[in-house]
């Protein structure tokens, strides 16, 4: 009985440390970003100028934005692989509308992009929650479907900068106090989503569903509705990312957004979002995107072949997963030894 009175303190303390470590994940990635940046600057002083920092932020923005939606999906123990193709489709369709309707309101360009993405997300969500087919398969199929549709729509053409209103592409290059607009927009989305993920019942439901689906059902959580919403939001943000892609590059062809889906999933996992659901933050995912892009730019600055970029990104992903696994095992082992002590007492 004395064991009962004293023992709980032990696992709690050990746990507090484990939890603190996890919470410090965002901090750890931020430090990693700074380290990579510092190391590159030492070998190549040109790396630290304002322009290249702006490039770092801008380059990470779209992936970070996609990472917000992806995080919402992944914490529910699902995944959305269709985002890359949604970026491509929404970018081209919005560009095409500008091309053929010169007076089309700039703001509606964004609304259109979001609507396209939300529609694809709704299809993803509906199929996943109604048929209970794993979302990995559903969204992989959707990736190809949307790519195919995109190919038909694009039909080998390209949207050129001349077709896009200047007030639309402004978003892609203007800065405020030296910070690119694009990065500011994404920062606002990340902050708002991060706050929402902590503060509303519906968003806590997402974590509960991913953490223990059976318990979520017993707790009366409307899992289907929540997962559906997560897919719609992920799609909508992918659509927004497509609109921003157009603003950033001012031109788009059939390859727009190719391969983004895997970069996003990498960023999310590197950012500490558990691939089997239940934990992780949108801030972590955004920082993961920033880290991947910083490494990418660092390799360019160091004049290392761009092929290495993918190998490094993959290695980082493996390292992140190995770290999570190691952490989990360590926590499990320390708890086991505590329970052993418990029994002996």
């Amino acid at each position, binding site marked *: *009985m004395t064991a*009962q*009175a004293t023992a*709980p*303190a032990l*696992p*709690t303390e050990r*746990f*507090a440390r*484990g*939890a603190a470590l996890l919470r410090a994940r965002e901090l750890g990635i931020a430090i990693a970003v700074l380290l990579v940046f510092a190391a590159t600057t030492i070998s190549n002083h040109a790396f630290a100028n304002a322009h290249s920092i702006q490039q770092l932020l801008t380059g990470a923005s779209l992936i970070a934005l996609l990472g917000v939606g992806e995080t919402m999906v992944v914490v529910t123990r699902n995944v959305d692989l269709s985002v890359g193709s949604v970026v491509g489709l929404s970018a081209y369709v919005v560009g095409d509308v500008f091309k053929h309707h010169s007076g089309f309101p700039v703001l509606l360009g964004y609304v259109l992009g979001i609507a396209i993405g939300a529609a694809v997300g709704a299809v993803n969500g509906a199929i996943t929650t109604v048929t209970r087919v794993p979302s990995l398969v559903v969204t992989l199929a959707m990736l190809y479907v949307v790519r195919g549709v995109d190919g038909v729509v694009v039909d080998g053409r390209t949207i050129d900068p001349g077709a896009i209103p200047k007030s639309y592409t402004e978003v892609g290059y203007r800065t405020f106090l030296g910070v690119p607009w694009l990065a500011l927009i994404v920062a606002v989305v990340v902050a708002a989503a991060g706050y929402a993920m*902590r*503060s*509303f*019942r519906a968003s*806590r*439901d997402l*974590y*509960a569903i*991913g*953490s*223990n689906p*059976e*318990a*979520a*059902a*017993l*707790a*009366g*959580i*409307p899992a289907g509705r929540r997962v559906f919403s997560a897919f719609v939001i992920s799609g909508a943000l992918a659509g927004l990312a497509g609109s921003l892609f157009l603003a950033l590059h001012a031109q788009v062809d059939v390859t727009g957004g190719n391969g983004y889906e895997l970069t996003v999933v990498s960023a999310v996992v590197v950012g500490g979002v*558990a691939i089997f659901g*239940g*934990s992780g933050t949108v801030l972590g995912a955004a920082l993961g995107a920033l880290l991947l892009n910083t490494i990418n730019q660092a390799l360019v600055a160091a004049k290392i072949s761009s092929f290495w970029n993918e190998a490094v990104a993959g290695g980082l992903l493996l390292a992140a997963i190995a770290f999570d696994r190691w952490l989990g095992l360590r*926590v*499990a082992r320390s*708890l086991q030894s505590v*329970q*052993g002590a*418990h*029994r002996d007492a």
Partner: protein
Amino acid sequence: MNDPLGTSPGPLGAPDKDPLLVLDRAAKRFGAVHALADGSVTLYPGEAHALLGENGAGKSTLVKILAGVHRPDSGTLLIEGRPVVFAGPADSRAAGVSIIYQEPTLFPDLTVAENIFMGRQPRRAGRRIDRGAMNRAAAEVFARLGVRLDPQRQARGLSVADQQIVEIAKALSLDAKVLVMDEPTAALTAVEVERLFDVMRTLREQGAAVLFISHRLEEVFASCQRVTVMRDGRFVSTAPIGEVTVDSVIRSMVGRDLDALFPKTRTAPGEVVLEVEHLTREGVFEDIGFHVRGGEIVALAGLVGAGRSEVARAVFGIDRRDAGTVRVRGRQLPNGVPAAAMAAGVALVPEDRRQQGLVMDMAIDRNIALASLPRLRRLGLIRRGTERELASDWAGRLQLKFGGMGDPVATLSGGNQQKAVLGKWLARGPSLLIIDEPTRGIDVGTKAEVHRILDGLVAEGMAVLMISSELPEVLGMADRVLVLHEGRITAELSRAEADEDTIMRAATGYAAVAS
């Protein structure tokens, strides 16, 4: 019996009060299996009501109907006199029913406080969750329970007892009218059980009703006012606790003579089949030595976690042993090679048949033939016909009840799944059968059949090493009983010496009566 309402409400539930909850003749089938044929129970405000029955009696199905998890095929549920139909767990909770499940249902990634208030977190302006208020409310519930738990810690890594406490806190914080507790005390220490009973008392004084499910009859007699017994999915009786005795309750739970449940043919033990010496696996068990002869059943008894299954796994070679020897018919088995144990004629029927014993989506005949495939092979190919022949043969001998041989094994009832696992291993013609919890979670009728099968095998000269947590099963079936406590053998008892008391004392480490 047909009118559960007419029974006496007992000392605290005064007859003039209207019942809080009435479940009348609820039935639920899963495929061909009648999980519940007549689930009836009436709860009055202020009473603690025990629901008793053997494993497979339908208690858990009844609980899940009250929880809104299962919708009954027929029958009615009244809450405060009004008929209700629960579309899901949320409806049940909204109606004031709160459930503590046998298995904790926590979210490991979330904090303890969030686990308690999931879906109904305290909120402040703008519908935002008020974490401060939530943590304080959780701390208050813990204070009421008299436990020290940090509301802000993650639920991952909580001990089973602490998880159960979080479940209890969850139910308490709901201020439920009806609190259902499905074996809440299994993982709790005596002090925690006392506190739980205090909480039950407080809730009853506030006019709530408690439905209490436990296998520990002493707890039932200490804390409940009325008792309802179920058997084979049916309501048997409801009576005030003062009008029943432990014996009468057990008799109505089992519904037949214990002798019929445990057939035992006297067989003269033959030669030694299994010989284990100084078997040790560090931190798990130590210096285990015993032998099993042909024609006898040796039972490994002890509390959960005493190392019984682990010993069996090490004997079979699934886990490596750190020291000691295992001999089958005089020949030593290599360390950690299950295939060698199988070749030597050892068969292991694991405890968790869904996970370890069967391939649930595979056909019944294929499952039964699975362990015998090397024998059925012709030129490296398996002929479906021989496979089916072998399976039909064993299905007949074990009186397996099934739809079609090609149906997935998952369609069988728990008891018949167990028979299928048995058949799978018996088809190999083993000389030593190691069987872990042979009748866990299967209905009484099939239980008796499994016992009869085991008895028949032993009569034919097979050696059986049986692990069981059910004392009646150990006492009824075993020729010798080895009791484990914290990884050591604390008693070896002959059939004549073994009784409930000596086994429990040895299992809890109070007395080492090694003979």
